[in-house]
């Protein structure tokens, strides 16, 4: 297991570098920040001074080298907007997003396992067809529209829920529901498919031949075998939550990392954007490793392969 973790961590380094490199150069291409942060009447001297102060006059390669050296010392530079350390700004925004995503994934996984298993137990039954249709619809609803409809119905018309903010449980309902809908729809379908094939496996017949109850057959024998494909997809969906977070946090004014990233792109706040992307990428790689660990815990064959 330790070997596997070490190998995974090492193999994540290169992709991580590629991500940093990509964001660094792309961000530099989005236009001169001097246009945004200096008055229109700024003289060329002022511009040169601004560039020199922020290191923009160096060749790109040098800038990147300096940046890497700083990052190695956990120094992410300063925000152009607020002059705060970029690392701090990102870390402040991060917990809000993490909580939102955590609740969402928890609800999505629990709900999908229950509904997916029910649907798979009798393929093509009414339950199965209703679950299939609702889940495929859920997976196709645009989240921004779902959020706006939620606001229209529950905040504007009924007045039950607030339209923004993070205080109180009520404020969590719409953001979590919006973020939840797509992963939930996809997961139900994946769990169903995996359970259908697990339930038709010979070892399920053997369990029945031993006289095991149906509950034991479904939850004791089939579910753990069906978990692997569901887990892989859940990992991908968790990565996709960052997409959703950008939209949801923008609509509901959620002070998370998605909103921070959009704002820093719009305002060419390189340091913050880079720090945010780096952190996101780190979290995503950590998440992938976590998924692998879960695979290994669930399936002894993966464990053996990992140990080799």
């Amino acid at each position, binding site marked *: 297991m330790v070997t596997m973790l070490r190998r995974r961590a090492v193999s994540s380094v*290169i992709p991580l570098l590629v991500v940093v490199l990509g*964001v660094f150069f792309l961000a530099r291409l*989005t236009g001169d920040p001097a246009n945004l942060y200096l008055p229109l009447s700024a003289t060329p001297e002022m511009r040169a001074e601004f560039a020199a102060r922020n290191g923009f006059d160096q060749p790109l390669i040098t800038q990147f080298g300096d940046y890497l050296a700083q990052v190695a010392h956990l120094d992410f530079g300063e925000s152009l907007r607020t002059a705060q350390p970029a690392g701090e700004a990102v870390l402040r925004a991060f917990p809000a997003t993490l909580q939102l995503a955590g609740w969402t994934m928890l609800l999505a996984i629990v709900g999908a396992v229950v509904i997916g298993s029910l649907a798979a137990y009798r393929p093509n039954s009414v339950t199965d067809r209703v679950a299939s249709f609702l889940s495929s619809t859920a997976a*196709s609803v*645009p*989240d*921004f529209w779902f959020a706006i*409809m939620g606001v229209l119905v529950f905040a504007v018309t009924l007045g039950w829920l607030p339209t923004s903010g993070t205080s109180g449980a009520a404020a969590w309902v719409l953001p979590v529901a919006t973020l939840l809908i797509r992963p939930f729809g996809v997961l139900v379908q994946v769990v169903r498919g995996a359970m259908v094939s697990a339930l038709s496996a*010979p070892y399920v017949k053997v369990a029945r031949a031993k*006289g095991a109850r149906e509950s034991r057959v479904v939850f004791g024998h089939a579910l753990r075998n069906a978990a692997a494909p569901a887990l892989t997809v859940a990992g991908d969906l968790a990565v996709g939550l960052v997409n959703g977070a950008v939209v949801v946090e923008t609509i509901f004014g959620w002070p998370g990392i998605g909103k921070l990233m959009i704002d820093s792109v719009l305002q060419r706040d390189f340091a913050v954007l880079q720090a945010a992307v780096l952190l996101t990428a780190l979290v995503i790689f950590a998440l992938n490793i976590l998924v692998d660990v879960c695979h290994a815990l669930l399936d002894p064959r993966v464990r053996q392969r990992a140990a080799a």
Partner: protein
Amino acid sequence: MAQKDMSRFRWPALLLQDRFAFAAALVLVAVAVCAVLGPLLIGDLATRQNLRDPGREPFSLDHGWAFVLGSDSLGRPVAARLIAAAGTTLSVAVPAVLCSLAVGSVWGMWAGYHGGWRESVSLRVADVILSFPSLLLAVVVLYVFSPSAVGIVVVLAVARIPVYLRTARAESAELRSRLFIDAARTFGTTGWASIRRHVAPTVLPTLLTVAALDFCFVMLTESSLSFLGIGIQPPDVSWGLMVAQGRQELQSAWWIAVFPGLAIVITTVSATVLAAWARLSTDPGQRWRHGLRRGGSRLRRPRPARGDVGPGPSPTAESAPTGEGPDLTETPPPPLAVSPAHAVSPAQAGAPVAGADTLAVDGLAVDIRTPAGPVPVVRGVSFAVRSGETLALLGESGCGKSMTAHAVAGLLDPAAEVVGGQARLDGEDVLALGPRARRRLAGPGLSIVFQDALSALNPVLTVGTQLAEPFRIHEGLSRRAARARAIELMERVGIPEASSRAGAYPHQFSGGMRQRLLIAMAVALRPKVLLADEPTTALDVTVQAQIMDLLAELRSEQRMALVLITHDLGLVAEHADRVAVMYAGTVVETGPVTEVFGRPNHPYTRGLLESVPAEQHKGSRLDSIPGSPPDPRSVPTGCAFRTRCPMAREVCAGHRPTLAGTGADRAAACHFGKELADA
């Protein structure tokens, strides 16, 4: 027959059958028509501001059809804007999907076909692209190139390439190990030629399904981007942009945001439904499953009729087919004439005292439900076995021997159904029992050993846990006590270091050891009857000998009745006391092994025995049975074997022979059984 051709030309018909998929296809066609003809229809209605008519309410035709869904604050009709936006959406989504489909699938097939470093590098690249949230990537890139439709297409195409790459890679890597690719290599066909001829046509249907789902994703991302203000820019219209605009006026004019959202939902749901349908209809296994649903209600109808002629003797059923032509082969065979069990059942023939049989199967019939109607796969099977005895159920693949065992054990697939007959375990018909009573019997009464031990053992549970299960279920033992019994059992079946290996998983054992574990699990509760379904077919001969010896020991030790299901005549000769030879879903001959093999009373048995190479002179031609076993869907009328039989006469086509006594303890289902016996 000819299913392949049919399915190729019938897909529009198939589409019509599925109302959901048909509706979805209609929606997509409508969207496409709007996109193409929209500009002609609406002219500049969508963009022309009309400040005299701001914020009209929807559902009124007073101002012309364009205003049926209301108008926005600039007086532009929502309906016209929806139509114009359909064009924008498709002009982004379709090129993006096509680009990533083309690049990703060619790349993936190349990587998957060749494997090695090409495969790992490609997968790494895909990982990097996918590890970056695509929406964020799009946001950053669109800021570089300034938001435009072309920019969105390029970004989304690049971001989605890995999806196709991964799918195409996985599928072609699986194909790479297939023999027909190897075969092509032996002709000297390699690289792109092989990909074009073999890989691409096989992988393409899956990729198109992925593309349909991806179409939804691209559409949603485009509208999200437009909603965030970095996608399609005004004055162009897009559904996402319309929602963003409507959000500002949510309280005063709800309709501006609602309708474009609905348009997105309906379009994406349609694409998803159509993709799901396409996946079902290109996967033969799934199609079969799918067909069950509609077949289900229709198929139950013949059941009562069949039940009438089922178990009991039925004199009329015998003569019924007479006079009907051989064209009957097209339709499912006529209702069975189940052998009048009381007269000729081997149970009776073998043991005059009724009740001496531990298991007596009588007239068992099993149908498989298919979209084309029920297919009888077991057509009146009767046999009996006493405790301490080994009965071999001998037959070639597809003769229904496994299905018989599964039916008796109550483990049929949902598609298969027992439609007649009895299976009496110590006089009690297990087929008539409810689920709870059957569960009580599963283990101590009837037990089964499967052919492939690797798939029959649960891969994620330790063997100790699995072996302890019978004790926990039936004897209510504690975890610890059950485990102790499991270890005892492992020792009994000859697994070395049992106590330490109880914590190991199935994949850590060799094939022979796994089969021992499976046998241990089956005999844990000393069953009265053990059904062994090809228990050694997956094993090497030297290991097979060990396993057969173990089964024989356990049988005499526990006084079990052993039903050995196999296709191997040598195995039957060496290990069975009695044999029931099966052909086309029914028992054609039964009796003690020495007698049946020494002097077969059915031409099929005789043909089988003559086909064994070892029994003939080296290099000489083997005597063989012409033709091949019939498909269960088109079993010949009368005697099922007559089309391959050297002795077939007219009577064989008209009358189905029943199992009739041909000597002491022997029976054969042949019109000339007696003659063969006396010859």
